[in-house]
């Protein structure tokens, strides 16, 4: 006997929040996989701390999405009982920590810190804008989260510089990570009906308005880290519309097993 899946409200008010909430949730889940496996103890602690912040932010957003959805859904139901197509995270965060190294290793540290730097910069930019949201609850969540994202960004950018401007080996691995990750970044800056609705109603920014500030911060980071600014490609990922990579199902299997097998399980 397993728990049946829940239906999710398709209104843009809910979808806009789910995109943010799921992006934080899935990145938090990926970073949690490093717990006990990071190259040094300090980084093990740092990655787990960042994961905790992200999951905390996601909880607050899911709770708000549940209130707005009108079905009285709890944050845990939204986190654990949706079908894959109803998760609205961007594809970049669901890629395995091993990046381009392949599944033979538990994780590639260069890939992990570069993804964190790209995502933390994006999160910091969007949280700054969401502090002005006409939804006072969302503005309050953003007021807290923006300060946390600042630390995430600083920490991961420090590592990108250290690896990029480090040894030949660390620089080579960071470039390989950039090759893999860059093609997933356009999804963070494409607008559609959902964020257009949010902008028109003062809820939050259209995602395409984040593109230029993000690129200029990435350019400054890459210059410092001796990384080339990559060329854009025609590839477009579609996670925020519910169409995910082949990796998503495996994450959900890990995340959902307990609640599916033992409905309402708690400790």
């Amino acid at each position, binding site marked *: 006997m397993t728990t049946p899946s829940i239906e999710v409200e398709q209104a843009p008010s809910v979808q806009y929040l789910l995109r943010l909430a799921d992006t934080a949730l899935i990145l938090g889940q990926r970073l949690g996989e490093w717990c006990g496996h990071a190259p040094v103890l*300090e*980084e093990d*602690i*740092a990655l787990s*701390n*960042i*994961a*905790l*912040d*992200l*999951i*905390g*932010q996601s*909880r*607050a957003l899911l709770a708000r999405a549940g209130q707005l959805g009108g079905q009285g859904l709890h944050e845990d139901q939204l986190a654990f009982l949706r079908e894959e197509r109803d998760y609205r995270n961007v594809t970049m965060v669901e890629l395995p920590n091993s990046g381009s190294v392949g599944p033979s290793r538990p994780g590639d540290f260069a890939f992990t810190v570069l993804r964190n730097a790209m995502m933390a*910069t994006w999160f910091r930019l969007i949280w700054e804008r969401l502090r002005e949201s006409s939804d*006072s*609850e969302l*503005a*309050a*969540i953003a*007021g*807290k*989260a923006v*300060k*946390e994202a*600042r*630390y995430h*960004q*600083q*920490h991961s*950018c*420090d590592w990108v*510089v250290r690896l990029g401007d480090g040894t030949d080996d660390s620089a080579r691995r960071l470039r390989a990570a950039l090759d893999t990750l860059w093609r997933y970044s356009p999804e963070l800056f494409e607008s559609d009906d959902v964020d257009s609705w949010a902008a028109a109603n003062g809820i939050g920014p259209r995602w395409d308005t984040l593109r230029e500030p993000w690129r200029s*911060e990435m350019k*400054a*980071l890459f210059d*410092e880290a001796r990384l080339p600014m990559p060329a854009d490609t025609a590839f477009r990922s579609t996670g925020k519309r519910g169409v995910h990579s082949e990796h998503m199902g495996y994450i959900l299997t890990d995340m959902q097993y307990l609640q599916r097998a033992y409905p309402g399980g708690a400790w």
Partner: protein
Amino acid sequence: MMNAAMRVTADEVRVQRAWEVLQGVLDPEVPALSVCDLGIVRDVLAEADGIEVVLTPTYSGCPATEVIERSVIEAIDAAGLGPARVTLQRAPAWTTDWISDDGKRKLREYGIAPPSGEAAVAQERPIRLIPRQAIECPRCGSSNTERLSAFGSTACKALYRCIACREPFEYFKPL
């Protein structure tokens, strides 16, 4: 029978007593500080039959939040002021500026460098191009210290090392 003025006074006394009780409720992760020292108690209100405590969470993912909520309820109930009810208030967001001066002194005595003011947050840059503000070692007082990691044993602390006395210490990060 109580008249309105007497009831106001009785409510004030209950609120006052509740604040005193909360001075004894400690943060489980930094047990040198009470929830009042930490500045997370935003308000205490007298209700018809109990006490409402308004708390603000420190970090979004802080696992201590739920423990603190329970400890507050238990302490108020145990003091006979209950039933206690806790409401969480997110805005305005908690800042380390709300840690009391007494709290900062207790942190230092406990071996954790207290947070510097809001200016230190603005000084945090995405890329480390400018030197960061020197943090004083809580053991020997030297400013000759270095950051080992922005993240320590809990979300709210960073790891530092004192170059003068060679001791590692934690720094309560400004937020």
